[in-house]
């Protein structure tokens, strides 16, 4: 018995201490990527028909049927609860449909899609020479300028690898969730400060963990880099002006900082503008808003992910810098999270089904807003992409 216990214990220790197999860092944009002919919307969008865009109307109808057929009851808020779907092909609207009382005029909560907007603001500040990702975050935000927290860089915040202790978790564990406490109770006055006070649990840059707190910390860093809160607010207005985003709301915490983790509201059409900007490597028509290098960086797997022992929570995620990728880790036998999507697919992802999906190789941007209270993981996103690609006609006019 004693021998048996020692053997089990040794095995556990061995398993815990075994280094992960070396893996190649994957990126979504190859060096040679050249975007196709894209149409950029002004106030209004150009519309294309399925026939013009090379898609089957029946195939797109199948997509609509999948997304808009209720599979659960309204009373219980179960099943697929799509509020809108927008498919943009080469910058033109191919499919647009709304449900549950939403229209193209309604702003929709984007939840964690907001994080991808914080990524753009960071990229704009880098482009302007006002932010250096390699600098210590403490240089911009003093609560991080103490003890071992000094080692946390801006890049670590962009890649959710600060090492600060955090418990992400929503309605399923509201009692111990840091994100719930941050948004609604203990952290509501200053969410960055709430996050910065967490203990440093891991060496910065060594462990990836999904943390909404880190985005709000980064947002505080960006305020300083921008030159103050009003300059930071002006930066978002600048992004909106340059991309033609007309109608948006970004809510603040008690200190005035953007709730960059969660609270951007935008119309699906305006959300699609962000996808189009990144599809075109940071250039809006002829206006380079963030550099192609920034888009490439943002769609490259977070370094710390490769030194983080995978578990059920992290396996479904392929994190970039507040964008989500579809590479998997072949060296670990880990498949891409979206099996039916090309490996260059990347997306912004928010609670309850909000998505901005970009597929560079297909010239596609897909926006979905929803109120999915069931946890579908990547299932609906994968099926949406599968059905869009299934609807694409081959050059002979038949479905591939």
């Amino acid at each position, binding site marked *: 018995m004693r021998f048996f216990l020692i053997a089990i214990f040794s095995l556990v220790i061995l398993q815990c201490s075994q280094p992960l197999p070396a893996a190649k860092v994957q990126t979504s944009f190859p060096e040679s990527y050249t975007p196709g002919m894209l149409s950029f919307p002004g106030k209004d969008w150009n519309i294309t028909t399925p026939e013009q865009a090379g898609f089957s109307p029946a195939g797109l109808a199948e997509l609509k049927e999948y997304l808009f057929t209720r599979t659960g009851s*309204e009373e219980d*808020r179960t099943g697929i609860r799509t509020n809108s779907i927008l498919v943009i092909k080469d910058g033109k609207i191919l499919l647009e449909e709304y449900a549950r*009382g939403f229209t193209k005029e*309604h*702003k*929709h*909560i984007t939840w964690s899609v907001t994080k991808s907007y914080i990524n753009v603001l960071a990229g704009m500040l880098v482009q302007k020479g006002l932010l250096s990702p390699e600098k210590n975050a403490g240089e911009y935000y003093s609560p991080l300028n103490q003890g071992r927290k000094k080692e946390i860089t801006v890049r670590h915040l962009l890649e959710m690898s600060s090492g600060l202790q955090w418990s992400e978790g929503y*309605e399923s564990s*509201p*009692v*111990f*969730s*840091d994100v*719930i*406490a941050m*948004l*609604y*109770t*203990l952290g*509501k006055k200053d969410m960055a400060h709430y996050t910065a006070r967490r203990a440093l649990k891991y060496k910065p840059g060594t462990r990836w963990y999904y943390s909404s707190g880190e985005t709000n910390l980064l947002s505080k860093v960006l305020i300083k880099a921008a030159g103050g809160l009003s300059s930071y*607010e002006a930066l978002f207005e600048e992004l909106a002006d340059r991309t033609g985003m007309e109608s*948006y*709301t*970004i*809510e*603040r*915490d*008690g200190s005035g900082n953007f709730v960059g983790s969660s*609270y951007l*509201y935008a119309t699906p059409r305006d959300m699609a503008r962000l996808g189009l900007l990144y599809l075109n490597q940071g250039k809006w028509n002829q206006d380079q808003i963030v550099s192609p290098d920034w888009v490439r960086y943002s769609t490259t797997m977070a370094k710390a992910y490769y030194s983080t022992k995978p578990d059920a929570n992290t396996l479904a995620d392929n994190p970039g810098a507040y964008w989500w990728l579809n590479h998997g880790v072949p060296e670990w036998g880990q498949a891409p999270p979206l099996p039916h999507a090309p490996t260059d697919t990347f997306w912004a992802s928010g609670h309850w089904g909000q998505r901005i999906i970009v597929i560079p190789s297909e010239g596609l941007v897909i926006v979905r807003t929803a*109120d999915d209270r069931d946890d579908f993981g990547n299932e609906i996103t994968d099926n949406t992409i599968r059905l869009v690609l299934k609807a694409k006609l081959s050059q002979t006019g038949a479905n591939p």
Partner: protein
Amino acid sequence: MKKILIALAALLLLVLLPFLSSPKLRAFPGIISAFYAKEWCSCHYVMKRDETFCHNYARQFIDIDQFENNEQETTVTVQGLGVTTRAMYIGEREGCLILE
């Protein structure tokens, strides 16, 4: 037997003490009203949805006790689990904010 029960109770208290002294646990009752007030406010004033829709949107697994929407002051006051929270719609760009 009595001694055993006292010892067990003391042990249970010892185990629960870290949880009872946890700030997050103590703040928990406030979540119900804060979530409802903030998300109802944003649903109605930012997303421009009607009251029925927003009640269905903001409800949680624990029911609230009181609700008041003041359209003139654009405030939403909610009581739940003995805690009252007020959220306010600030404006087009800023949306809603939890006041207290």
